């Protein structure tokens, strides 16, 4: 009994270590964007809130209209939803105000991709986080995971899908740019390679230091995003989350990978538990006849 119990306690401790994964939690490494990464650069000082991009996005992506207001006469989605992959919001900071364009940030290390069981959401060509409905079971874990609240679900449909900005990848395939950047009359949002956009953002900040807060949102936030923002108001006043530089999935992934690296811990646990159960049964059979044979 003594030895067995000691072995049993060892087994349970293994289980405990298995469950916490604290033994091998490694610090996150800053992810590098894909070599072909493209993205958007949005400048709050240029946007006049005309919402031409909202309508162009609905057209380009065959999205139904999203009428609101009295008698549903006003076509203006109030937030991202299954009918709107791109919206313009208005934020106030004291007596100052700013428009903010909201769509998928196309994270370099996205939480939605970490969440997705069969990789329906995945970074594909140009680093675009794109959606393949064939591998989606509609679990909505991506909605829980996304720090920006971007993926949306077709709640009204009996055969629902996830809806999110895919940076008009169907237009890029035809050599066109995304609908939102194409129609923007003030070039408040522009399309390009992420490296070029980052350079452009830095140039604007350097040439007009008084005009912008000294930060490019998305350069490092949440491990970096392919959509970048520069602004005349602090980002925390514009609805942006304070994420730090670690990729959003860091905490969950370090636990998950810490426990299951190489599948060693579960196999070891299986071996230990199997051995103890085997020894206990043999001992019970030797000592106690009723245990013999068909025990559950």
């Amino acid at each position, binding site marked *: 009994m003594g030895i*067995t*119990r000691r072995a*049993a306690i060892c*087994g*349970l401790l293994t289980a*405990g270590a*298995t*469950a916490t994964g604290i033994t091998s*939690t490694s610090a996150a490494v800053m992810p590098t964007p894909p070599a072909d990464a493209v993205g958007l650069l949005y400048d709050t000082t240029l946007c006049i809130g005309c919402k031409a991009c909202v309508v162009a996005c609905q057209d380009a992506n065959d999205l139904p209209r999203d009428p609101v207001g009295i008698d549903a006469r006003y076509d203006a989605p109030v937030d991202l*939803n299954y009918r709107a992959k791109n919206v313009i919001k208005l934020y106030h900071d004291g007596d100052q105000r700013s428009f903010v364009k909201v769509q998928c940030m196309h994270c370099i290390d996205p939480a939605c*991709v*970490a*969440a*997705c*069981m*069969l*990789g329906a959401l995945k970074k594909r060509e140009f680093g675009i986080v794109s959606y393949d409905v064939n*591998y*989606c*079971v*509609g*679990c*909505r*874990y991506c*909605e*829980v995971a996304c720090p920006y*609240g971007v993926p949306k*679900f077709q*709640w*009204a*449909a*009996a055969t*629902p899908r996830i809806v999110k900005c895919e940076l008009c990848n169907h237009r890029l395939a035809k050599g066109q740019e995304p609908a939102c950047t194409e129609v923007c009359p003030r070039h408040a949002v522009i399309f390009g390679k992420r490296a070029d956009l980052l350079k452009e953002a830095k140039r604007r900040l350097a040439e007009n230091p008084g005009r912008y807060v000294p930060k490019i949102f998305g350069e490092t936030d949440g491990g970096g995003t392919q959509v970048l923002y520069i602004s005349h108001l602090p980002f925390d006043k514009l609805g942006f*989350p*304070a994420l730090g530089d670690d990729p*959003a*999935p860091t*905490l*969950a*992934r370090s*636990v*998950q990978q810490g*426990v*299951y690296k190489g599948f060693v811990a579960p196999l070891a*646990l*299986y071996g230990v538990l*199997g051995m*103890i*159960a*085997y020894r*206990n*049964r043999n*001992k*019970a059979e030797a000592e106690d006849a*009723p*245990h013999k*044979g*068909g*025990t*559950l």
Partner: protein
Amino acid sequence: MSTHAAPVGGPLVTTGTRLFAGIFGLGVIAIAWRLLLGLGSATALNDGYPFGLWIAFDVVTGAALACGGYAVGLLVYILNQGKYHPVMRPAMVTSALGYTLAGVGVGLDVGRWWSLWRVPLFFWRWNFNSALLEVALCIMAYIAVLWLRLAPALLEPYTSGPDSPWRRRAITFSRIIDKLSVPMIALGLVLATMHQSSLGTLMLLAGSRLHILWRTPMLPLMFLVSSISMGYAVVVFESAFSSVAFKRKPEIDMLAGLAGAMAPTLWVVVLLRVGDLAWRGQVGALFAGDGRAVMATLEIVFFLIPIVMLASPAQRRDLGNLVRAAMAMIFAGTLFRFDTFLVAFMPGANWSYFPSVPETAVTVGLVAFEVLAYVVIVKTFPILSGQTLAERQAL
């Protein structure tokens, strides 16, 4: 000892089973509603709260409440406490039913339920960073292991019946399952350890949108240990239920022992919870005075209540007290899971969620089905042990 197990017998149609069948019937109507008209129509779920009652209760809490087989299995097979063997079969029946219904809960919750079969089969697409994938695969495998291990008991009326080629096949099958019992026991225990802890990993992916009181890498360990406590509590509750419903003598020695085994797991949960907050320097957040701080405090209090209720041997031998303590324990574990999945989640001030009537009807209906199926199974198959019909009639 399991050879002493015998069907309870008696009529299957009673006032009780009729009542539970009726409640389940209402649930079936709500299930049809959800399948025909979609999640938006049947539930209060929304883009801010994409996980609701079905995930928090039917799946996450349901799987923990179905931990009786795991909790008693650890005692019997690993800690070599053979005296608890008689409660192994009923515990496994509640486990098999509970996990199966958690699986049904998942099937109703996912939007594209008809493509769910791809998850176990499309192995080349598996994303091992996803705790949800691991939970899904483990639970599917665990359901299979539980029913396979129960199969000899469920086949027993048949294998002891008149001879036929199928009867002989059933006997061979039962023998094979019995031969494989040790690898299957170990597999079951590993699968349960894996998914019960990974259920605690799930919400960590919400990162900054999970409240700081719950955002800790210790969450998986706290989920694992509290699931064992809940497993014992459910076995105590189930045994007390059986003794009242089927007029059997309560197995008070066994239940007192189980209550004794439950107490240390409760202590571990409380010490982990408080120790983790202290380690992370977040004890102050418990006294912030907001709703979430109150809920986290209530969690700790409800984990402490059964510890106090089961402190002395006399308390552990008082059946009424045992049942109340088990209920307090079940409530504590349930609260912990609701908090982690719903209260701690912060999608933004403009979102709110409260389960709809059909959503609640599905959850209540599935619980009613579980009770119904349990009653039918223990009356028909050799699950409960220790007393013959004559002994019961003499009671």
